[in-house]
């Protein structure tokens, strides 16, 4: 197999006696765009939280670029190369857009403890921050408080932050939730551009987004992976249709 | 031997008193997410109200007034003050309860002066319950312990066996759902707050008679109650019981040990005899005040969620 970024082997998760996930085997290649879909209650959020380090698996291993990350604290996972966004937008409302993104970029350049804003590294940080702002069409908004932005713009800031950390595995949790058709289209293009060259895993309900963006799709039903395949294969599969009977796209 | 039993008994009863106060605090936190800094103030107010009421209504009337009066004060605080500030955030609520704690202490000083008042157990109740060896054990002390147990049992039964208890337990778990079912959850919470306050007031009314009643009561006991709640686990009444008893017994038992801190360290070999007798000649018995905090630090290091708390960071 080609270079594997993220690998889940026999991962299971229970909360007390409630079995949420079972026998999860998944391998995601470098540079792949992978979507996680499934009916409500299938365990997508739990799987997402497992991968991103919110809690540890009950059994099985999760490895990122060969090293185990299952059970590490969030900041160590991020430094291992994983960045995630949140379903409910988690931008820093009272900070400006530029400050939001700078926070994510600073870490990448190792400037976590600095007190001064002088020196060549800071020029680089500034340049990188501006580049991200430019790529997201947010330069005009750079000095507005993030809390004052429109919802889709806040989402964009969030995704910029996730990408800004320099992580090569990006996890997006329902990035287009709550958006209009038009906004969704913008975000799809935006995500494609921002995650160029990186590996992407996203939880999504919107089938258009999935088919537009994903290279491969995993369908999660009742805590197990029903199948993994290309969007076309998924669409054609009878079991998937049955699992989604009555659900449809959000 | 008798001293050990007496110490143990003292510890258990003191622990039960602590429990009466801390159960309300931990319950309110578990339910509403409010840490009520002024909870220890309710204890103090209960003592003072009882002290005043006793002159008019007799001792038992005084206890009753103390309890109900504080319950009323608690209700008013929650319904009109805390609820308003809640919209500003949890931490503003914390600040308000802190401000109330400060204000209540000054209010008490306003009416009663800055020194302790002569609130004491009436003559009729000053007899021995039983004797252990040579020592006679005061009845009132036993009464305090008994009251705590009865209160705990009553609340437990109320929560577990009545319909309103079921609603309350559900409201703790999922207030929105209970609201959607048509119950006035806000009123339920106010009522529970009042009950918690009333419990603290009862503890104060009885404890103040036996121990001292002074404006310092709230501060002195308040911190211990915090420790109990941290050690027991926020939100867990069972944990509060265990922690209260643990701390009560620890604090009371240590008073009977006749060695100094320095002597212990010297025996282990950490310091010389000289240092032990000069610098560290602090008798272990006097560290009774410090022990609860050491316990808290230990718990924080090795089991931060407390004895029975959940994993809410």
């Amino acid at each position, binding site marked *: 197999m080609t270079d594997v970024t993220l690998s889940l082997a026999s991962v299971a998760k229970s909360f007390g006696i409630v079995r949420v996930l079972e026998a999860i085997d998944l391998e995601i290649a470098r540079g792949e765009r992978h979507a996680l879909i499934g009916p409500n209650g299938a365990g997508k959020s739990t799987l997402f939280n497992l991968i991103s380090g919110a809690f540890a698996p009950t059994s099985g291993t999760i490895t990122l670029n060969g090293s185990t990350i299952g059970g590490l604290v*969030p*900041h160590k*996972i*991020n*430094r291992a190369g994983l*960045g995630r966004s949140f379903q409910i937008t*988690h931008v*820093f*409302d009272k*900070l400006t857009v530029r400050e939001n993104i700078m*926070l*994510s970029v600073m*870490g990448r350049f190792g400037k*976590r403890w*600095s*007190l*001064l*804003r002088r020196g060549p590294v800071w020029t680089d940080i500034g340049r990188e921050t501006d580049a991200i702002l430019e790529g997201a069409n947010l330069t005009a908004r750079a000095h507005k408080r993030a809390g004052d932005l429109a919802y889709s713009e806040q989402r964009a800031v969030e995704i910029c932050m996730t990408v800004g*950390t320099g992580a090569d595995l990006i996890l997006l949790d329902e990035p287009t939730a709550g958006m209009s058709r038009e906004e969704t289209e913008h975000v799809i293009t935006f995500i494609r551009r921002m995650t160029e060259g990186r590996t992407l895993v996203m939880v999504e309900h919107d089938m258009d987004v999935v088919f537009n963006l994903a290279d491969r799709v995993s369908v999660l039903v009742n805590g197990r992976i029903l199948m993994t395949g290309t969007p076309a294969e998924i669409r054609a599969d009878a079991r998937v249709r049955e699992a989604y009977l009555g659900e449809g796209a959000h | 031997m008798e001293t050990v039993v007496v110490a143990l008994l003292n510890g258990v009863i003191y622990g039960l008193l602590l429990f009466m106060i801390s159960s309300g605090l931990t319950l309110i*936190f578990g339910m509403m*997410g409010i*840490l009520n*800094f002024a909870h220890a103030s309710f204890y103090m107010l209960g003592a003072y109200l009882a002290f005043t009421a006793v002159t008019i209504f007799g001792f038992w009337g005084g206890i009753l007034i103390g309890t109900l009066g504080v319950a009323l004060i608690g209700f008013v605080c929650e319904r009109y*003050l805390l*609820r*308003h*500030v809640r919209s*500003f*955030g*949890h*931490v*503003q609520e*914390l*600040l308000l309860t802190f*401000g109330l704690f*400060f*204000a209540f*202490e*000054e209010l008490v000083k*306003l009416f*009663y*002066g800055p020194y302790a008042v002569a609130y004491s157990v009436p003559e009729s109740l000053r007899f021995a319950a039983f004797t252990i060896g040579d020592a006679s054990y005061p009845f009132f002390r036993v009464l305090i312990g008994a009251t705590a147990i009865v209160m705990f049992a009553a609340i437990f039964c109320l929560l577990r066996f009545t319909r309103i208890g079921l609603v309350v337990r559900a409201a703790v778990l999922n207030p929105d759902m209970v609201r959607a079912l048509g119950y006035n959850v806000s009123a339920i919470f106010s009522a529970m707050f009042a009950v918690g306050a009333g419990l603290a007031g009862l503890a104060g009314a009885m404890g103040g008679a036996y121990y001292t009643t002074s404006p310092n009561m709230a501060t002195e006991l308040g*911190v211990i109650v*915090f*420790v109990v*709640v*941290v050690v027991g686990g*926020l939100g867990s009444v069972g944990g509060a019981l265990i922690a209260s008893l643990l701390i009560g017994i620890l604090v009371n038992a240590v008073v009977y040990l006749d060695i100094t801190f320095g002597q212990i360290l010297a025996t282990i070999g950490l310091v010389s005899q000289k240092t032990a007798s000069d*610098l560290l*000649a*602090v008798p272990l018995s006097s*560290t009774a*005040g*410090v022990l609860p*905090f*050491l316990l*808290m630090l230990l718990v*924080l*290091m090795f089991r*931060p969620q407390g004895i029975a708390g959940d994993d809410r960071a």
Partner: protein
Amino acid sequence: MKSIFYILIAALAGFLIVLPYVGDLASQNLAIKVMIAAIFALGFNLLWGQAGLPSFGHAAYYGIGTFATIYAMEAIDKGGFLPTPLLPLVGAAAGFAFGLIAGWFATIRTGVYFAMITVALAELVSAIAVKWESVFGGESGLRSIRSDWGPFAFQTTTSVYYLTLVWAILVMLFLYWLQGSPFGLIVRGIRERELRVKFLGYDARKVKTLVFAVSAAVSGLAGALLAISDESANMVLFQGAGSAFVVLNTVIGGANVFFGPVIGAALTTCFGYFGANLSHFWMFYLGVAFVATVLFAPEGIGGAIVERVRQVRAGERAPLDLSDVVNLAALILAIVGLIILVEVTGTICSESYRAAVASGQGVWPAVRLMGLSFNPFSPLTWIAGVGGLLLGTWVLLKQGLAKWPSFLRRAELAHPVGTGETK
């Protein structure tokens, strides 16, 4: 507008510099107390206003700074190792060291748990200080003397005044700069969304511990200045009142404005200084002011000023208008009413009054207040008190100066202004 701000600062600085020449010793002493309280409050607010961490036991680090400095002063007296002007650094170092340990414990948990741990830690220190007489001096405390250093003599109040002033300015510059630094940005990010910051690769716990330590260091520095000024240290410094006052100062002054804690500290200290002579119950008034601030003006005085400046700049209001006069009148009315109630009640409940009643065979003498006599039996007394308080409060609420409490609110929605933390 910014230039006006700078002019004000310059004027204040100028005034402070010439104070010893225009004012008497008492005013210098008061100013020293104010500056010490202001530094303490600024240190506290680093943790509270910037990091969102409520510490209700900060007196511990203040007191530790004082005691450490007293010991250093003793050492200097025996054979100087440190120039006296650098003594505050001893307090800062002691505060920092203890703050690091305490902060490490306290940051194990967040929110209300954190607050409880800080209280318990402060009580622990206080309990140890009370018992450990050989180190903390017991009830009489410890004493030392200020040693002169080089060309500087420190035997006069004025010399201490200038020393305190210099350090106050240095601390303010340091904190202001810290706030604007990248580190400050991370701290504010943690306050808003800790989880997010963690997922950006920052070790939030380490950052919080460090902020705690720095905050404790500044508090320790304030304590050191106290040691220098008073030449003594006493275990009562560790008691709850000290921790309560710094919270009071910061909240009343405004936690979200840099100079808020300074304003609050100045007002409270002056109020305590003058008020303690006028009334036995000045702390009660302070408590009422605190509760009122939290309920009705959570942004504090500093926040109110900033808001007013913003409104004037946006053209929404004139700098001073009729409603301000009305508000002021209503405030005074309410305060007068409160004073009447508190003083009369407090006096008739006091020991000395009861003794006077007993010796005067049941006659209840009037309470002398503000040049007037208030008869406790006269309904006029109580009407004046209650009426003034209620009327004044009602006008203030109606004017919207204070935020409507929810049970009085009608159709209009009040604008919640606050350190609104979404938990």
